[in-house]
């Protein structure tokens, strides 16, 4: 995995990293979200996604601001709180050739937005969905969100008494075909996961733990940098080999699971302590539940089904972006019109 390359380096489209960047962030120094922004920039640059073909969507929150900080040549839409899924669905339906990337927060997705989240997962709507998960509402100054772990403490000492909603587990249960979890502080894992998400066909959901340095990075918080580092338990080591790349390292077949993505790219999963099969939905749920019980944070590509039909396919939509269809295709002829009216005579 390369670091962010020199300004003169170019990717397979001949683009430097510049158009993959965005405005200067206005988030707090050290905010996990900014790191995720960098991972997104790197993944999109390295994979070689055409920036103008991307639509960046978000709800409201510190996390939801980040689309302004990457891919300056892509259109973006900062919608209302908790409704990124619906606005993204609409945009994708209007133009299925767009690559839609949605960024949301844990408040945005697991509280006010949980309904749209569930139904997006159920439809397996083709898009990349990143939850920048810090366990609090950053932008409104640090109240608990519904992903906060039970027992986690706020700065003022308040303790969370409720079970956390695990968006990854929920996504798997409800039908998302690609579900990963990562940590903003782990580019080695997050960047290949993002590339795999780009290569995926249905909904690619990434729950990325992203500490809030201002409101949730203290002793007693389970979402602080030190604690997340401590409990982070990757299920495998990850490499992404794009369809146009040849692997630069040898993979030991006995130790490596290969997931072939629909575009021909490959995700190489190197075994760690235990065997982990990301294609087994029930096993994935079980592993998450176990890690939850033991206070660990399971990360990696938790579940993937590369064959599952996405929403556009299920709906039998034409390949042509709907927004490109002209009046000739959209307005039936006068004869048809007369024909239709006859039914009502």
């Amino acid at each position: 995995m390369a670091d962010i390359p020199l300004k003169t380096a170019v990717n397979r489209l001949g683009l430097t990293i510049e158009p993959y960047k965005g405005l200067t962030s206005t988030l707090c120094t050290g905010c996990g979200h900014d790191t995720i922004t960098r991972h997104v920039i790197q993944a999109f640059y390295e994979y070689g996604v055409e920036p103008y073909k991307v639509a960046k969507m978000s709800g409201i929150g510190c996390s939801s601001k980040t689309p302004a900080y990457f891919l300056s040549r892509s259109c973006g839409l900062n919608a209302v709180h908790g409704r990124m899924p619906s606005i993204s669905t609409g945009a994708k339906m209007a133009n299925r050739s767009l690559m839609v990337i949605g960024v949301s927060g844990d408040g945005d997705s697991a509280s006010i937005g949980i309904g749209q989240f569930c139904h997006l997962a159920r439809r397996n709507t083709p898009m990349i969905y990143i939850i920048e998960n810090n366990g609090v509402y950053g932008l409104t100054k640090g109240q608990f969100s519904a992903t906060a772990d039970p027992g986690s403490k706020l700065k003022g000492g308040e303790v969370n008494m409720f079970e956390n909603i695990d968006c990854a587990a929920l996504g798997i249960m409800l039908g998302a075909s690609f579900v990963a979890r990562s940590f903003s502080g782990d580019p080695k894992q997050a960047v290949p996961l993002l590339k795999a998400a780009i290569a995926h066909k249905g909904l690619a959901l990434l729950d990325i733990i992203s500490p809030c340095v201002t409101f949730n990075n203290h002793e007693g918080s389970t979402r602080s940098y030190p604690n997340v580092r401590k409990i982070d338990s990757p299920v495998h080591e990850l490499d992404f080999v794009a369809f146009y790349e040849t692997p630069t390292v040898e993979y030991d077949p006995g130790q490596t699971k290969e997931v072939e993505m629909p575009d021909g790219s490959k995700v190489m999963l190197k075994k760690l302590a235990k065997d982990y099969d990301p294609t087994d939905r029930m096993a994935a749920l079980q592993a998450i539940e176990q890690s939850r019980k033991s206070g660990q944070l399971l990360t990696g590509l938790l579940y993937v089904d590369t064959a599952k039909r996405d929403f556009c396919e299920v709906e039998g939509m034409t390949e042509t972006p709907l927004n490109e269809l002209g009046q000739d295709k959209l307005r039936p002829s006068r004869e048809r019109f007369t024909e239709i009216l006859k039914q009502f005579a």
Partner: protein
Amino acid sequence: MTSQPKGHNGHANPLKDKRIINDFTIEAATVNGSGSQTANLVLAKSIINMGIPVGPKNIFPSNIQGLPTWYIMRVNEKGYLARKRTIDILVAFNQATYLKDISMVRPGGVVIYESDFTLTGVAKRDDVTYYPVPFGSLAQHHISEIKLKKLLTNMIYVGVLAEVLGIEASAIEAALTKQLRGKEKAIKVNLDAIEVGRKYFKEKLQKQDPYHLERRDKTEGMLMMEGNTASALGCVFGGCTVVAWYPITPASSLAESLSEFLEEHRVDASGKKNYVVIQAEDELAAVGMALGAGWAGARSMTSTSGPGVSLMAEFVGFGYYAEVPTVIFNVQRSGPSTGLPTRTAQGDMLSTATLSHGDTKHVMLIPGDIRECFSMAVEAFDLAERLQTPVFVMTDLDLGMNAWLTKPPEYPTKPFDRGKVLTEEDIKKLGKFERYKDVDGDGICYRTYPGNPHPLAAYFTRGSGHNEAAAYSEDGHIYQRNLERLSRKFDTARTLVPAPVVDSVAGAEVGIIAYGSTDQAIAEARDTLAATGVKTSYMRLRSYPFDMVKIEAFFAKHKKVFVVEQNRDAQMAQLLKLELSLEQAAKMRTILHFSGFPMPFEVIVDGISHKAAHAKHLDVEQKMPEIVTGGE
């Protein structure tokens, strides 16, 4: 011959020996879920097939089966099809309501009823003609298929009515054949059931009432169509490609028929759909999808009713400020959410016009008939894209769900107006792109679609916190200027939306302003008033924001102007008052009707002729018996 039951109210039949041709109201009082719908439709169509106009209104409960339903058919050769207060001919089929139903028939009218019912109390009248018919036992004996007995009982009353009124056999057959297209066997058993009714009347009863049908030629080329169907068709021909909706009465049939039309007319040769219809998880998601699609350059729509519009409030405000086109149909119904969801109203005019927090105002188109349900649906997509804003199409349950006799809508000849959209080429030529710059001075700026490859094409969309280049800004000056531009845009909208339709009558001192589904009631009220020497002019509003020049002029010509609407708070009158000059506002009176039933034309006649000053709460609907049941 079965003998006529005797009444005990001692009132004489005022229509004895009169002959009334092609001018009466039939009410079939049945129970919903009992299959009377087909019978009623066939009845209506049969009369239409005789060249006589019919206007049916279906008054149905908020449940699926077993509660009272009234199908009220206005038959009128002059084409007055508004609701009329009086019921001339009743088919009393509902055991739970027949007493009250019979008591409401006009003196001189006709009661056809199940002879098993015992007439007591208010239902025992001397001033109506009774035709008792043993529907149950007729069905028992004459309909062989057990499963169909109940269903076809309804057809027996069609037969009885056919005989009573003189509906031609060929007219009925044509209606049935059309209705049950291709199902030969079904047509046969239905015709048989009708014949049972005819025969019973011929053999056992004797016509003693004044009502007659005679063939005319007033329905040539006319269609029977529901407003929701017409709106759906308009969406097809208006080029809508993304439909996102959530079921709700009375809007569901709009999206559902749209879905069917699209399936039939928008699938390409390879079987791929040139559209998508999404049944969303709720109205917030539905409007979010519609806005997302509009933002990305597709023509999108959603349809709902009041409760859904309320849920959309935040998102629609966002659409207004972020300037995203989409089309929202509000098929209005009564009440709050557990109000009367199957009753009609024009009760969302004010709240839709100003929907959402902050300073927001929305464009509304207001179809007044079936043709406009079609044409304004088409137009709404042009306007939404031209104005880059959510556009509402406001109808109601009466217009949307009842079948209306109508001239065919016209094929739209105006090409799509996709509004101010810059392509890659355009930006190359211009050398720049500023999303929120008012280049043309009309408040409408240029936009790009996401996916435009030009390096300057991309922009970031937010609510109001942006400068002309679409960059985030908290500058008060910029904020205020942006809001002022949006006001300017609204003034541009004023010039683009459908103008009011005015019928100015020389010498009229009274003006009437109305909108939407009351159009036919107004027409009849005006003729009725004219017959008594009261001349009236009529302005039908068709949109918001208003064309105040035209409206002021209309007021200026009249001494009094009555605003007629179906809500408690005189909502349109309020919107008018906000913009009218005080001199003209002084002339405004209101006529309000908000019982959930379609406006009867008599309310307007009474309102104008009898009430001098503020005519308010003129009419309290007293038709329906009280029903004590569950929620909705």
